[in-house]
């Protein structure tokens, strides 16, 4: 149990294609985490390159990366404190930030 005191749920992390280069080409990664913040901690441990693509070196999420819990943006689920339930799918997607470049 990686997070004593909290029930860690089996979560599927869906990795969108632009990010698969950072995790050996995997489209899905299975992790156990009770909430979104813990999921990022677990990714930092198990998938450091993928984590660095999601968060900068201060630990802040990058501006142009979005996390969705099932079909809802993380902001609609309480942000990084959003609790996760077994079977949840956390999808990592780049933001629609085109135009300037």
């Amino acid at each position: 149990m990686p997070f004593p005191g909290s029930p860690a749920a089996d979560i599927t992390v869906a990795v969108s294609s632009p990010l698969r280069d950072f995790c050996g080409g995997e489209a899905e990664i299975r992790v156990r985490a009770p909430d979104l913040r813990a999921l990022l901690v677990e990714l930092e441990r198990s998938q450091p390159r993928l984590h660095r693509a999601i968060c900068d070196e201060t630990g802040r999420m990058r501006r142009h990366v979005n996390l969705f819990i099932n079909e809802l943006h993380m902001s609609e689920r309480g942000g990084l404190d959003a609790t996760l339930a077994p079977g949840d799918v956390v999808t990592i997607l780049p933001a629609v930030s085109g135009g300037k470049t």
Partner: protein
Amino acid sequence: MTERMILSIGTKKGLFVAEASRTRGRFSLRGPFGSGVAVYSTLVDVRGASARIYASSCNAFFGMKVLVSTDRGKSFKETKSPPAFPKDDGRALANIWSLEAGAAKKDLWAGVEPAALFHSDDGGDSWEKVAGISDHEHASKWKPGAGGMCLHTILRDGKRVHVGISTGGHYLSEDGGLSFAPSNEGIGSAWNPVSYPEFGQCVHKIVGHKDAPGRFYMQNHGGDPKLPGIGVLRSDDHGRSWRSIAKGLPSDFGFPIVAHPHDPDTVYVMPLEGVTRTCPGGSPGVWRSENGGGSWKKLARGLPKKESFFTVLRDAMAIDDLSSPALYFGTTTGQLWIGRDGGEKWERLFESLPPINCVKVAQA
């Protein structure tokens, strides 16, 4: 292996490599590498038995990478890690603006945004922040220019290390990079209430010369009638003091400055209008001085005579080291030009690349 002329071209949409024989007849192009991701700095490193090409790949979505090629730009892979601030530093890497070779074979330096300096002793696989400038007491007072708050120029001269920061000014280390002090006497700043401040100038680029120790040329942020001539400067005392050499130029605003590889008195700039940052009057030209900035001549044979409004960015002009060298510049409109015979005769090598950020050249 027969040496070839290698051009490494960083663009808004990835890195391109162009290669030609030493006669520079026809350049073949490959790329983009790091496709779709902006490259702000590149280095053709010819110190080892086989050349390496480095490039920063600055992904606005997912962060930075340093790419390296050991086959003259036929393929690239990521180094083990890019520069990164320590977690407790509080700063996050926003861009890599400069990659320069260090003294030892695998030494590399990287200038980054927010303005800081990193050093690698293993060819870019690991990096350490250079605290002497990155954590300088002035760092919190530096302000970003339009391109961001970047450390963009790194010059080594024995134990001396010069860095250019926009907008921080010129800083000089005389102890191999352990400590730095502002060294901006004579460098003006038109938007500062103090015209000649201790630091805070918007230095655009600095160049030195191996045959003239202590001599440096600078393209500073000029173009303001309140302080005419502050844009193009020269130092003869290792960058401790600077004087204007802008007289005779159509504008003292510009970004790159390049020195002739075999003649320290010959220097090249690309004047731009200060407000629009495009070619004066729509008529581009590289301007050359053959007397250390005493006078200037426009070199424009083969370049458009009118209706040309591109910008040439700080690292987008380079010169090779043949006995009769060629200049190269890339434009924000995606054209790459070669100026043969030291810029006497210009030809367009490529006309529709993505906007060009940087150009480096070497025989490899």
